């Protein structure tokens, strides 16, 4: 028997049909006013209907936050926690924490980027999640691609686990009328391989992935020059590089390294510009964030057009696992400055392992 938590954000996705960017906070009211209908019940039910295993014990939130859907199926379940009539982000977080305290094996949630952020805030990477996409914004790569895929993740548990990104709209940028996503953190997601992949290749892909990141880190570290300032972007791959350098990395921010020492932690644009004034030679190391392969413009707004111009496009090092980069049609940039974007376009070299590189187009 496995214990599976279920949390549904009942209002997620409602803004989409009425032209809103999301239903976070007060936007929900506006969505209702505009006549939006909930999309989430159908998706949760699709998923539940495709689950094949019988040994599941569900722990679900009350009413429209879980109970209402699971009730229609033959699963054993119990209801956990209390909710208000109008559910908020706080409900999601509170119930998620309660579920964790009941030692669930897996947390299924339905929602969008905002819900994913709430789940991340509440439980971090303590248990793997299955994310049923039903938001308006879904920049995050945590979401399952289909009811079929979500059900299969549940059926396959316990299985290989991988880190997936939680992105959401950068609210500061949004207020300035710019739509830019920011990396908020990582959730753990079951990794299902296509059934047609004949024969498993590795008994534990998570370990392999970690090993691959270490290889990348080792190669990058070996090639670092002494008289150069290195600006490490956000993400777990960059964290591996920092680990190799024995430096404590800010997972979601930018750190600066010079001669193997940290010279700036979680720095903003102004601090970056100051550092760049002090150092003649500087290089940026970044990894693509999100499923569309953005290396600038998602998750690292501190790398502004001005910073990028100072560093120069020849001094940008991209790192990513073979698995991640080979799944991308191309890399993308969206710095907010067309001229800078244009200069970054063309083919670029990505470090994908120890002495292993990939040439890929930047669009």
């Amino acid at each position: 028997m496995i214990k599976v938590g279920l949390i549904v954000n009942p209002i997620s996705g409602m803004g989409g049909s009425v032209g809103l960017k999301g239903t976070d906070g007060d936007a929900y009211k506006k969505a209702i006013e505009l006549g939006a209908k909930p999309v989430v019940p159908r998706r949760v039910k699709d998923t539940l209907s495709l689950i094949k295993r019988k040994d599941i014990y569900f722990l679900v939130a009350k009413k429209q936050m879980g109970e209402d859907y699971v009730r229609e199926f033959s699963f054993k379940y119990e209801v956990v926690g209390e909710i208000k009539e109008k559910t908020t982000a706080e409900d999601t977080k509170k119930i998620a924490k309660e579920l964790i305290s009941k030692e669930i094996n897996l947390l299924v949630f339905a929602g969008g980027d905002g819900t994913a952020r709430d789940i991340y805030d509440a439980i971090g990477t303590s248990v793997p999640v299955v994310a049923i996409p039903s938001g308006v914004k879904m920049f995050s790569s945590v979401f399952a691609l289909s009811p079929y895929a979500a059900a299969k993740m549940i059926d396959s548990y316990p299985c290989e686990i991988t880190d997936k990104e939680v992105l959401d709209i950068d609210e500061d940028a949004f207020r300035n009328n710019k739509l830019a996503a920011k990396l908020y953190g990582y959730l753990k997601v079951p990794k299902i391989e296509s059934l047609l992949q004949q024969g498993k290749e590795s008994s534990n892909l998570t370990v392999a992935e970690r090993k691959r990141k270490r290889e990348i880190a080792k190669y990058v570290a070996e090639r670092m020059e002494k008289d150069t300032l290195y600006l490490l972007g956000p993400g777990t791959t960059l964290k591996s590089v920092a680990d190799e350098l024995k430096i404590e990395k800010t997972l979601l921010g930018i750190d600066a390294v010079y001669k193997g020492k940290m010279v700036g932690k979680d720095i903003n644009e102004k601090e970056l510009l100051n550092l760049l004034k002090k150092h003649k030679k500087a290089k940026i190391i970044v990894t693509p964030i999100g499923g569309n392969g953005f290396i600038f413009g998602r998750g690292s707004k501190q790398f502004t057009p001005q910073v990028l111009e100072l560093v120069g496009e020849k001094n940008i090092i991209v790192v990513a696992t073979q698995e991640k980069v080979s799944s991308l049609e191309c890399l993308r940039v969206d710095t907010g400055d067309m001229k800078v974007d244009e200069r970054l376009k063309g083919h670029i070299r990505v470090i994908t392992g120890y002495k292993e590189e990939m040439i890929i187009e930047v669009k």
Partner: protein
Amino acid sequence: MIRLHMNENPYPPSENVLRAIKDSINNINRYSELKYADKLKEALASYNNASEKRIILSPGSEFLLRELINIFSGNRKLIMTNPTFFPALKHAIRNARKIIKHQLSPPNFELNREMILEELYEPTLIIVDNPNNPTGKMLLDRKFVMEILKNKDILLLVDEAYYEFVKYTFADLVDSYPNLGIVRTMDKSFSLAGLRIGYLIAGDFFLKEIYDFPRFLPIPTLFAAREALKNPEYMEENIRKILIERKRLESGLKKIGVTVFSGEVNFLLIKCDIPELSTILMDRGIMIKDLSTDWIEGFYRVSVGLPEENDKFLAEMEKITNNPALKW
């Protein structure tokens, strides 16, 4: 199960070939005599208008590719494309000293030739399949190949597994360029996948290092391959049928709304937003190749099958694309 996942020829080899296999078992407790291999090499030499001594046989071309990667990437950089014949690429990633992969991107899947030429400042082995599997695109042309080959520190290995479907080859350059090798297989075009017969047409440099490749191949394989080469018209007729079916399959898929990338071979590259399409099809008795694990999500490779197999595949695809539960 309908097998549209391994680019097999859906037609069996000729009756003569089947008889040759049956006739091969008389001395099956003995290793194949070298003259069996020699006669097959002779036939391949004549088929390819190449010199007999340049031909190295292998029980499937994968063994040749692995061996060449093992031997030549120890003190050379390796350049390959992604996607390509994946077993070779994976072996290379794990074993090459240094590897540069070129991501082929939709919609044109072109090789960035300038970036390749820029890379050739040190001893390098380049392996490219032409046409490429799974995009079906021709990645190389004569001018570019000769540009590469004039640098004697560079070795170029062209995997022409699908040669018979395009009839475009660089095999005639092997005599002039010691640093060129052509990998071929009879598995697909000659309907011999169950027997495994690959071969290398080796330039002098390759030949020097691989002359001792194991020579005692399975006797049924040697007999069948030789018999098949006596009547290439049979193979050509099958290819003609496959190419006609490919067109039908392509337009059928387009009608359903599936994105099809036109290739020149016995398979199609398609893009389909339905996640886990290959798993869904497998549940319905059809196998296709899911490219999402090794390459881009949503891309699949479909071999051209028998007309009735292709019909069934199209019918299932239509049902699937019309099923909202399979998409979000």
